[in-house]
């Protein structure tokens, strides 16, 4: 123990000597870090929740024929204008960043037994990944995904999901339909029954779970079947696009308009804006809190360090008497503050992560997993706080009048 006595031992021994006060200093910094980390985690969760809500609503960009409005699209009148199906290809080959999914649709309102329903032709693979609420149903057995990036995951990583999607494409053959819950209810149809549409007979293979939207009164069939049935040729009434929210703020809509000049490209603006606004607000709150905690934490550590300098005046005077330079006094305190920062960062990370996991589990049922990178940030922020707090006290410490070594205490 004594054999390794060196300059740093002075720091360790002093820390150990005054561990009571050390603990309170450490607690302050740890709680500060824990709060920052907790808020950061909760912010991430809430971002995720908003993204997820957006995802449940499905596509957030609509490509419509020139002159058509979104309500035209939803009412799906017989004479509603259309655009060529090739446009899907145009968008796909232009490789725009942020376009996660393309879903061409042809919709026409039809009358069956006095009930007005909408017959919608879809390409199932696309339809599926832009409507996660259906994916989540037990029927399909596919887990819920969050927006931005979900479709990419479907394609590249999760082969099970790919498998499931393929199985469904195969199952939606030319003579099969899916029915929205309301449509099925009104017509009294269920899985395995048949339905006559425009003189053709179709088998009902799925009844979709209720979404509370207009989607519930649709009957879905394969796009190409519907085109044949209605005699429209290779035309569609809209392309629903799943756009990543960041890309939308970066002007994805304008880029789409450039590719497809004779169409109307609209976003489901208020939803996107809500998303972006919420994210922005959350980030701003996090930053403000971070700044507040850095300031409050620095003052609190500063208070501790100040008291430490005061109670060690004579000790510091003694060091100066035996030849320590300013540099050595700085070193004594800055190494100490760095050690405090490292310890506070680790403890704060642990408390903050555990708290966020608990809060996340209790209130949002979201699984928050520890992020190793947060540990590094916690330590860095903690060192920043302890160092800021130490600057003024150490400034005082190096200016101590060594003549006070003569004082009795």
């Amino acid at each position: 123990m004594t054999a390794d006595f060196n300059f740093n031992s002075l720091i360790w021994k002093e820390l150990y000597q005054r561990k009571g006060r050390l603990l309170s200093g450490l607690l302050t910094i740890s709680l500060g870090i824990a709060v920052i980390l907790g808020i950061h985690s909760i912010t991430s969760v809430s971002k995720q929740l908003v993204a997820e809500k957006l995802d449940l609503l499905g596509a957030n960009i609509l490509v419509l024929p020139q002159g058509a409005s979104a309500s035209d699209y939803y009412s799906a009148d017989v004479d509603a204008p259309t655009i060529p199906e090739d446009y899907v290809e145009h968008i796909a080959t232009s490789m725009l960043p942020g376009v996660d999914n393309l879903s061409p649709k042809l919709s026409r309102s039809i009358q069956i037994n006095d009930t007005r329903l909408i017959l919608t032709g879809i390409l199932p693979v696309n339809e599926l990944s832009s409507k996660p609420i259906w994916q989540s149903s037990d029927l399909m057995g596919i887990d819920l995904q969050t927006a931005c990036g979900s479709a990419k995951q479907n394609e590249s990583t999760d082969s099970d999901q790919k498998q499931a999607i393929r199985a469904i494409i195969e199952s939606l053959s030319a003579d099969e339909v899916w029915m929205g819950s309301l449509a099925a209810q009104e017509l009294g149809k269920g899985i395995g029954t048949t339905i006559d549409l425009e003189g053709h007979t179709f088998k009902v293979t799925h009844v979709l779970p209720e979404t509370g939207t207009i989607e519930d009164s649709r009957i879905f069939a394969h796009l190409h079947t519907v085109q044949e049935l209605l005699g429209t040729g290779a035309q569609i009434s809209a392309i629903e696009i799943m756009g990543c929210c960041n890309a939308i703020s970066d002007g994805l809509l304008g880029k789409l308009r450039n590719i497809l000049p004779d169409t109307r490209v609209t976003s489901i603006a208020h939803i996107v804006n809500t998303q972006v606004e919420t994210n922005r607000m959350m980030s701003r709150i996090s930053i403000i809190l971070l700044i507040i905690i850095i300031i409050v934490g620095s003052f609190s550590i500063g208070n501790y360090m100040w008291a430490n300098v005061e109670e060690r005046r004579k000790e510091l005077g003694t060091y100066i008497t035996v030849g320590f330079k300013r540099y050595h006094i700085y070193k004594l305190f800055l190494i100490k503050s760095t050690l405090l920062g490292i310890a506070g960062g680790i403890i704060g990370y642990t408390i903050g992560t555990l708290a966020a996991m608990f809060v996340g589990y209790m209130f949002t049922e979201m699984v928050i997993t520890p992020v190793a990178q947060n540990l590094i940030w916690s330590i860095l922020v903690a060192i920043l706080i302890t160092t800021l707090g130490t600057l003024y006290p150490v400034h005082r410490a190096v200016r101590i009048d060594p003549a006070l070594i003569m004082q009795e205490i």
Partner: protein
Amino acid sequence: MFSLKSLTKTYIHRNENIHAINHISLEIQGGSFIAITGGSGSGKTTLLLTLGGLIRPTSGLVKYKGLDIYGLPPEKIADYRNNTVGFVLQTFNLIPYLSALENVIVPLLILKKSNIDKRKRASTLLKKLGLSSRQDFLPRELSLGQQQRVAIARALANDPEVILADEPTGNLDPVLKIEILDILHDLNKQENRTLILVTHDPDSARRADRVLNLSNGEII
């Protein structure tokens, strides 16, 4: 060895000038034993700390071997404190959470020597002062006389040419007083270190080669 030229230290206290030392000029021979006496507040401590590189004079010079100490950059003055002078004070000034041995090592901590050499040096000094069995004791576990001997060992860590002692026996009983005084006297007589001793005690002053009696910051 020391050459003081019109050395003055003036404190300003509530708009009043206090001349703690007032135009002192003096030569001190290397290896001599100087006692500084005088009433309380006469400027003894101020003079001693000024010699030791701890109090910058208001005016005048402190020359050590021809070198103007306060003309040096702060780092060099720190080096001077580290290896040329050794302080022994009435209040011992040991670091409470360090053992006797570690306290003696403190002045060596800022030097580029091996830890083992530093430890050996400190151990030798403690042995010389009769404390080999007390190396691992904390200051509060030592008697007052032992504490002052640790402080003397620390002052000797860098083998200084000058020992500056400010009432080193002020807190000790008569027996211990003589013991500590004998140690300091030996450091002067046998090891040829310059000893400058501030004291109230006539017996101590009598041993010195020369006595400086201060009054109101002046030698009388």
